[in-house]
């Protein structure tokens, strides 16, 4: 018989306000096997843990139950406390009487009753616990960063600086991400390329960093410390080693009608292209979908003009398989499609643009060489209207419920830059709220209003109507003066909501990392573990986790790097001992379990057994505990009931069911 100690936590008043803690102690003490029961203000505190320590030693406890917050909070704390007192850490069970009880029930009697039942279930379970030993697994000292935006670049640099090898996988032909498309950046108005390019160069030159551009992650297997990843290097059709980056091919390519993604489709590019001048690597790719040679077999101009002989039309996609200890996701974002926002006439008028398009228009390397002009007739605008929160903070299905966070600031930036360079242009901003929390952010916005005379109107725009004369009629309301507004504009700029990159779902599925209802990657804890995914060994960097500006992205990128470094610095990892185990005498070697195991952890061995005096050689399942992740799929599939999961055994779970239904 187990000697069980029960410890009931008040959690200040978090539990004690709705659960009669003393009653729980009293009832728990009556359960079979319980030889000690007490309560304390904060079990997780040092004094609380000391109580556990003392009771284990004095009463020779063989198992303990802590009735407290979720095991996801403090299971490790209490396991460690048990371990220090000489008890096997897996002889600890938690009854979650806070998140699953005191916080959701208001009636004290009901909550207390439920807490008693939850305690009984945990006691019943711990009575059947057996000591478990953690195994060890090795750590591959190399990290993978998926996405080569500022987040991915910063994370890779920080990991590399700590001395570990890092690979960056970027799906476009160059690293740089959205930041490379920006003109100037708030709140200091530095030129984006001027601060980004040095980082890109540093990453590409770093001896510990290896960059796969125009590549995608195809398959991920393994687990923390030991991931195996297949990377598809898409055929570039240009030999990276031979190409000198002269650019002659792009100039001479006759197929120049492809919408230029980098300039958000505002102009066109050639079929062989580098996305932008500072691209890293500075090696073009042939967009096979638009290349005449690939479409019709004729052309081949680029191969003829290339002095270096770098053009290789017969290149094939290549799959590289690499091992990694840690994976950082930095897949960033895109702006939402606006085809559902007909009221703003985005699809009807070329002069209604998104803010990201405006970044390209303002940029000296952009489609208009940095001149502010209308796309329709290249005329300089006189009146510009900015509309905030297009698809952000949106109640209906078309948009996003969240605030995109960066738009208030970049619109203030745009307004200020325009007024600075073109003082004749009138700038009006329609907003719901101006949100400027952040260092020097509100000051920045106030400068736009006070120094640059930007006209901010609190209110929404109902309609933008293109007029026959090419003007845009903007109908809105001014909520402060409570009046309708009708104004003509030459250009309308929409602050379109941002959303996670659409591929993120695929990546999350491969990594078994979770994503929220908006497709942002979920962190392990929203407050305390913001850069870790709930999946061990997977970390989050940048906007893929939630809307952020560059300073926040860089800070988070560094934090993710530190977490990855912490993992890579370990030589061995302790593994989860709650693994499956098959009972030799019950197993009939049917191999059902091996078919359902997602990790290939089950193999079959022939072994001589002694079954009630009969010696014979049998074929039975054996679980490799280093590979088993403890899902339990095999235990249910096993037709002979031979397979069981340690720590969550059939008997333990049934004991919990019985205790709850008692």
């Amino acid at each position, binding site marked *: 018989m187990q000697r069980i100690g029960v410890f009931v936590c008040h959690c200040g008043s978090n539990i004690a306000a709705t659960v009669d803690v003393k009653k729980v102690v009293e009832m728990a003490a009556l359960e079979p096997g319980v030889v000690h029961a007490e309560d304390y203000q904060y079990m997780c505190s040092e004094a609380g843990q000391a109580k556990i320590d003392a009771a284990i030693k004095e009463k020779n406890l063989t198992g303990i139950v802590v009735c407290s917050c979720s095991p996801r909070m403090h299971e490790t704390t209490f396991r460690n406390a048990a371990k220090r007192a000489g008890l096997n850490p897996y002889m600890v069970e938690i009854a979650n009487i806070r998140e699953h009880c005191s916080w959701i029930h208001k009636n004290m009697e009901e909550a207390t009753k439920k807490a008693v039942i939850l305690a009984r279930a945990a006691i019943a379970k711990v009575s059947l616990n057996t000591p478990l030993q953690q195994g060890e697994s090795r750590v591959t000292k190399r990290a993978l960063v998926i996405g080569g935006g500022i987040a991915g670049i910063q994370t890779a640099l920080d990991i590399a600086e700590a001395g570990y090898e890092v690979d960056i996988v970027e799906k476009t032909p160059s690293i740089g991400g959205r930041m490379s498309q920006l003109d100037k950046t708030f709140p200091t108005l530095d030129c984006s390329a001027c601060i980004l390019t040095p980082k890109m160069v540093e990453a590409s030159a770093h001896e510990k960093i290896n960059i796969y551009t125009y590549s995608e992650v195809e398959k991920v297997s393994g687990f923390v410390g030991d991931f195996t990843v297949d990377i598809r290097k898409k055929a570039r059709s240009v030999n990276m080693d031979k190409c000198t980056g002269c650019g002659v091919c792009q100039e001479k390519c006759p197929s120049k009608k492809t919408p230029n993604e980098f300039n958000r489709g505002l102009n066109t590019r050639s079929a062989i292209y580098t996305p932008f001048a500072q691209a890293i690597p500075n090696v073009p790719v042939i967009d096979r979908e638009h290349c005449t040679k690939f479409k019709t077999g004729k052309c081949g101009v680029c191969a003829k003009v290339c002095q270096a002989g770098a053009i290789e039309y017969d290149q094939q996609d290549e799959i590289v398989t690499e091992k990694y200890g840690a994976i950082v996701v930095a897949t960033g974002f895109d702006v939402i499609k606006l085809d559902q926002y007909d009221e703003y006439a985005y699809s009807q008028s070329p002069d209604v643009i998104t803010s990201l398009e405006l970044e390209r228009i303002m940029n000296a390397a952009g489609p208009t060489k940095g001149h502010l002009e209308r796309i329709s007739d290249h005329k300089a605008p006189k009146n510009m209207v900015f509309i905030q929160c297009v698809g952000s903070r949106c109640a209906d299905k078309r948009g996003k419920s969240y605030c995109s966070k960066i738009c208030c600031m970049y619109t203030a930036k745009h307004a200020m830059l325009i007024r600075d360079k073109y003082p004749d242009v009138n700038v009006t901003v329609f907003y719901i709220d101006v949100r400027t929390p952040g260092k020097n952010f509100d000051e920045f916005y106030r400068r736009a209003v006070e120094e640059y005379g930007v006209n901010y109107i609190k209110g929404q725009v109902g309609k933008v109507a293109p007029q026959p004369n090419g003007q845009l009629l903007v109908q809105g309301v001014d909520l402060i003066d409570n009046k309708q507004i009708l104004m003509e504009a030459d250009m309308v700029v929409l602050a379109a909501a941002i959303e996670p990159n659409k591929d993120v779902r695929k990546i999350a599925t491969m990594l078994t990392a979770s994503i929220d209802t908006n497709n942002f990657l979920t962190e392990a804890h929203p407050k305390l573990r913001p850069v870790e995914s709930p999946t061990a060994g997977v970390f989050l960097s940048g906007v893929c986790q939630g809307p952020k500006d560059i300073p926040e992205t860089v800070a988070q990128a560094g934090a993710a790097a530190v977490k990855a470094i912490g993992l890579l610095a370990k030589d061995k990892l302790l593994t989860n001992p709650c693994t499956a185990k098959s009972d030799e005498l019950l197993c009939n070697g049917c191999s059902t379990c091996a078919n359902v195991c997602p990790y290939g952890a089950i193999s079959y061995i022939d072994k001589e057994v002694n079954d009630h005096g009969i010696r014979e050689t049998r074929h039975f399942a054996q679980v490799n505990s280093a590979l088993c992740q403890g899902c339990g799929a095999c235990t*249910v599939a096993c037709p002979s009931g031979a397979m069981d*999961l340690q720590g969550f055994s059939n008997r333990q779970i049934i004991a919990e069911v019985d205790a709850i239904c008692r």
Partner: protein
Amino acid sequence: MSIEKTNEFRPKIVAFCCNWCSYAGADLAGSSRLGYPADVKIIRVPCSCRVNPMFILRAFEKGADGVILCGCHPGDCHYTTGNYYARRRMTLLFSMLDYLGVENGRTRVEWVSAAEGVKFSTTMNEFVEKIHSLGKNVRLEDLRCRN
């Protein structure tokens, strides 16, 4: 909420929650103070695929009035494929239970992610409501256990 208005019948409801998504979703419901009736008691399992149909039969045998299984959304299973196994097993089990007279409303599978505290709470409220409308379950109860 249904607790207050029905003093006579307090259903026993067992909720199996996978550790990675639904248990965390239940925690989030808790920290966001999104209430649901105290009749629901949660058992933590590593994955929805750990739930043996035997556990569910056992619950009904011991007098449970409803059993709900919650796991990660299809495609999001921490162990890649576990919830697909659970889904298939439960479809089979629930139709057999229905045949035995344990109405379909007493059993349920629901996908709740770690971010869906609201969904967890509304699911539990709905489920308890449903069990109230079905009343006490007597079909599989082992009468020898009754005290």
